């Protein structure tokens, strides 16, 4: 991939992962006071994952270097937060809320169903509250919430 901007020329052999990380670093990394260099890390990780769907482990070094952090520190942040993933999703992202308000209306049965029915082809994950607590059980397929959900409405959204 080749791209040229006024202030930099990218090598032709740059991978899509490298390109995405470079773009994210340029957009998000702002000059900070000494000791504040890490502050752009979460926005950068979000930008990379939004674009690629995950944060390639091979890119951890570039991110660390740009922010003057160790690879261990960057790795620590990626693995600490449930939102970030280090490999692409399998199929669709199916999230089912397993928190109290949804349990109160049968959320656990929905969770069992989602795992059994969709766990093979898709990435089924528990989420702890989507903020729709008066309209549970709540689930989300990709970026689409499914409210007052049951097996049928969830299956319909996943696409059977």
């Amino acid at each position: 991939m080749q791209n040229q901007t006024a202030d930099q020329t990218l090598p032709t052999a740059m991978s899509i992962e490298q390109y995405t990380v470079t773009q994210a670093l340029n957009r998000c990394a702002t000059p900070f006071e000494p000791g504040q260099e890490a502050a752009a890390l979460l926005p950068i990780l979000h930008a990379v994952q939004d674009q690629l769907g995950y944060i390639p482990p091979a890119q951890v070094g570039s991110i660390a270097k740009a922010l003057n952090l160790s690879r261990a520190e960057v790795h620590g942040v990626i693995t600490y937060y449930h939102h970030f993933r280090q490999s692409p999703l399998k199929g669709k992202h199916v999230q089912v809320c397993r928190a109290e308000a949804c349990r109160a209306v049968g959320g656990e049965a929905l969770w069992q169903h989602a795992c059994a029915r969709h766990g093979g082809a898709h990435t089924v994950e528990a989420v702890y509250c989507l903020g729709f607590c008066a309209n549970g059980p709540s689930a989300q397929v990709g970026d689409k919430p499914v409210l007052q959900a049951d097996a049928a409405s969830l299956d319909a959204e996943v696409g059977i």
Partner: protein
Amino acid sequence: MKTIYISQDSVAVALGADALAQLGAEIDGMTVKRTSSRGLFWAEPLVELDTAAGRLGFANVRPEELGALVQQGDQHPKCIGLLAEHPYLKDQTRLCFGRMGVTQPLDLDDYRAHGGFAGLDAARTMTAEQVAQAVLDSGLRGRGGAGFPAGLKWQTVAKASAAQKYIVCNADEGDSGTFADRMVLEGDPFMLIEGMLIAALAAGASKGYVYIRSEYPKAFAVFSQAVALATEAGYLAAHSADNAGSSEGAAAEPGFSIEVRLAAGSYVCGEETAMLESIEGKRGIVRAKPPIPALSGLFGAPTVINNVITLASVPAILARGAAHYAALGSGRSKGTLPVQLAGNILRGGLVEVPFGAVSLRDLVFTYGGGTRSGLPVKAIQVGGPLGPYVPESLWDLPWDIDEYAKNGITIGHGGIVVHDSKADMAQLARYAFEFCAIESCGKCTPCRIGSTRGVEVVDRLLAAQDAQSYQEQESLLRDLCDTMVHGSLCAMGSMTPLPVLSALQHYPTDFTASANSAKTGV
């Protein structure tokens, strides 16, 4: 020309509001306005029709019903009457949520026409000390959970001298059963911006952050847009890293900019110091206090940290005066709280009432209508996942922070989760430990290890075949809870035992082995 109002709140949209709006736009002579949600989540998608007498509401509208309801008005079966007279709304005191369902969230003119920025205008005629004093005099206590006097916090930061101070809004509303912050971010974002601007004036801060949980992507998108619009309109300074007010070209008024930050799926980042760590680009690990964030907070600078509702309550205090706010409420619980009715509830939604004006029974049964399933209410959890299950003997306590605290319950952010008779309190107790294990930041051994051991002890308790083994496991469970309560640095570890112990105390039969063998599932 007819006008209908349909909410663009996430809940309404998920239940079909966009399809309704599209259809409405295709009707001859029809104008469709997209507003925030009234918070009558039991009625969404709600359609409101403008009439001479006011807005007429229609609940749970399906697309094929839209044409008919416009024709038939109050004769239509889905009509719930005039919103202004609806029992769910008419006795509420919407100081904070007054524009919900009324205005279009990203319309500055609409915001101004409905009292927007009146608070900021008033604050600008006062000194920083007077602004902080007004908030102190109002009696406003933090609405995130701890209930600390907001004015006192602001004064502490105002008195600290530093080149840079911050206002950080905690919008990491992770508690199950809560959605008030989400409603503000999606539905009345300028109100939060106004509150932060007033806080900045009082504290002498030039930069603000709003930390929004990643499970609220729409709230993040809408609020980010609101910040951009407010910046364009000159209310906020443009964001730059170099915003300390001492850079070249500094105006007489330093200016205040807001950076919106997306969290990343960590419940403990709702704890204020873990949130600061996260904004600083690190793992969300809890810090020891002292030093308190008011003196050494974000990047070590004096920082005001407030919950969304705390900041959103501020404009009304400045606009109408501290005395008006302090006249509402009871005892040392001044003002109003936007209560969130959730879980297995017939009429879930947002009920903003002054402290002391209602009881839990009023909220759950009069407003909420009891359970959605129609089965009896078995348990009510107040204050989020770290709150106890409130026994019926306390359902008539006045809804007051200190009355509840005397009974070991933190009203906190105002979330109420209702469970019906099918609820298995032992499994909910087990889940309390399980959630703690998943979300623990790992710093404290009692929380990090205790939570996992807690799940195991509950399992052994449930499997106990005789009184002696049961006694042993219960004793161990109580000992473990005691360690977690006294040995944890933050509320995550120290309050996880509350729902566990209250479940054990008030629903002991759910824990005995014979009860267990009869259970079929979760």
